């Protein structure tokens, strides 16, 4: 469903500020696969997502979604394939617009927009149904401005808006990191539900290792622009947070043994 092949990305190449963000990334996701991504700060996790969404272009390599080569498409041109939730709860919604208007814009993802009314009765009923699944009472506040919602409510709404049009790929970049533990739990539970319901192919970045192990069907760990660990469903179930921490320690100490080097 998603194929990232031979992708390199360097920022400010050829200057003193040169930052190699990705070194030869190869990553393939089969349809319905839910991959969690962990790694230290600056490992390149967000860059992988940004290259998938089209916010950034790779220096070399290709990105394919469902067989379509999207490497050269701008972010808005490939938006029809991709749902995104950002880390910042402010980023995924339009604060000055109402809940139903925000949802309408998401509902029209990737379609040609015309001069028809943005919010119709039919859409409104659909939105109400969808909002009920969040169990936050938002279905009764369709005409409230999104800027009035709490961070957790906004993030839950963003998640809904990113997914209800069944995108081919769902990208989540630390989308629970800015929330208090209770809200983070709620949003992470909703994430599991919605991915399950729509069978979404998902890439989720998180700093929470427990969450990374609990959610999803596969886990990858990144370090300094490379994928250094890639474990599937089976092995993931046997892995503990301790094991992951141990893995981190090994890298931090610079003691890269042969096994990790080969991966």
């Amino acid at each position: 469903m998603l194929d990232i092949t031979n992708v390199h990305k360097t920022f400010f190449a050829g200057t003193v500020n040169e930052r190699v963000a990705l070194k030869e990334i190869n990553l393939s996701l089969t349809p319905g696969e839910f991959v969690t991504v962990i790694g230290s700060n600056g490992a390149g996790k967000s860059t992988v997502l940004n290259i998938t969404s089209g916010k950034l272009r790779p220096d070399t390599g290709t990105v394919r979604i469902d067989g379509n080569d999207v490497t050269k498409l701008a972010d808005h041109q490939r938006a029809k394939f991709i749902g995104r939730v950002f880390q910042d709860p402010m980023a995924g919604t339009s604060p000055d617009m109402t809940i139903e208007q925000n949802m309408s814009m998401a509902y029209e993802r990737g379609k040609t927009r015309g001069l028809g009314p943005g919010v119709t009765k039919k859409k409104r009923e659909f939105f109400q149904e969808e909002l009920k699944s969040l169990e936050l009472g938002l279905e009764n506040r369709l005409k409230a401005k999104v800027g009035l919602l709490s961070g957790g409510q906004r993030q839950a709404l963003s998640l809904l808006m990113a997914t209800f049009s069944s995108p081919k790929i769902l990208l989540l970049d630390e989308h629970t990191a800015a929330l208090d533990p209770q809200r983070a739990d709620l949003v992470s539970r909703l994430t599991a539900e919605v991915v399950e319901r729509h069978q979404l192919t998902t890439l989720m970045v998180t700093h929470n290792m427990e969450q990374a192990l609990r959610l999803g069907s596969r886990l990858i760990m990144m370090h300094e622009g490379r994928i250094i660990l890639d474990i599937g469903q089976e092995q993931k179930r046997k892995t503990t947070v301790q094991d992951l921490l141990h893995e981190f320690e090994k890298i931090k100490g610079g003691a890269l043994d042969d096994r990790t080097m080969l991966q």
Partner: protein
Amino acid sequence: MIVAVELGLIYAIMALGVYLTFRILNFPDLTVDGSFTTGAAVASIMIINGFSPVVSTIAAFGAGLVAGWITGILHTKGKINGLLAGILTMIALYSINLRIMGRANLPLLREETLITPLRDAGLLGTAMAVVVFSLFALAVKFVIDWFLHTDVGLAMQATGDNEEMIRSFGVSTDRMKILGLALSNGLVGLCGALIAQYQGFADIGMGIGLILAGLASVIIGQAIFGSRLIIIASLAVVLGSVLYRVVIQLALQAGLNPNDMKLISAVLVVTALVLPQWKFFKRIGGLANMRKSLTGAGAKG
């Protein structure tokens, strides 16, 4: 005083254009000073050359569209800073406007214009004319309200509110900005055409400093009448424009010189931008929000 109200209602069309760029797109567009005169020039020269006033006025709208479109292209494709893109178009338009007009002033006194029927019937300066101009301004307001609630309109609102988000929903924000700037300047051109016909001439300098009148209308109107909903915000702009002209009229009656008007406009806008920073006025939400969007400070908050 009725004349001031009439003028305010006609200028409201320009103010609605300014509302589209400043408030909806969050884009400080200075093209206005040029495109206003372009509209006046196009309509006047066409009327003088025998075109019907309706066709000439529509053509003025079209000329404004093109002017805004150019600023949009400069900003999005040419990656030129928004303020500078507007200034570039505005200055280039000065030469173009002179070319269109052939000289610095075009009198329309003996021509048949859109205003002639009102003038011949002796209605100018009466309540009847105010009704006619109100209906026209409100018609434009309702078209804008309708447009902003279509799928394209929502995308345009979001372009000014949260660009990255609306791109992630597949909207080319470049295209939205170009469209918004074109529509805005189309309205400004239309307004220029109407003002030329109302006052009976087009003049090369008639657009100078006009952006401040537009801004003052938007700021004053929304501070007083609110901006929570689009339908209220756009009505506030129309009322703000009338209020602005009335204030100017009062200033003139108080003995100020017409040449002082630019200074007064500037002072009005500065006041509206600075007052909300004072504690007392912070409580007046509308004003504070206005300031946010105008200065860009925390506009995304």
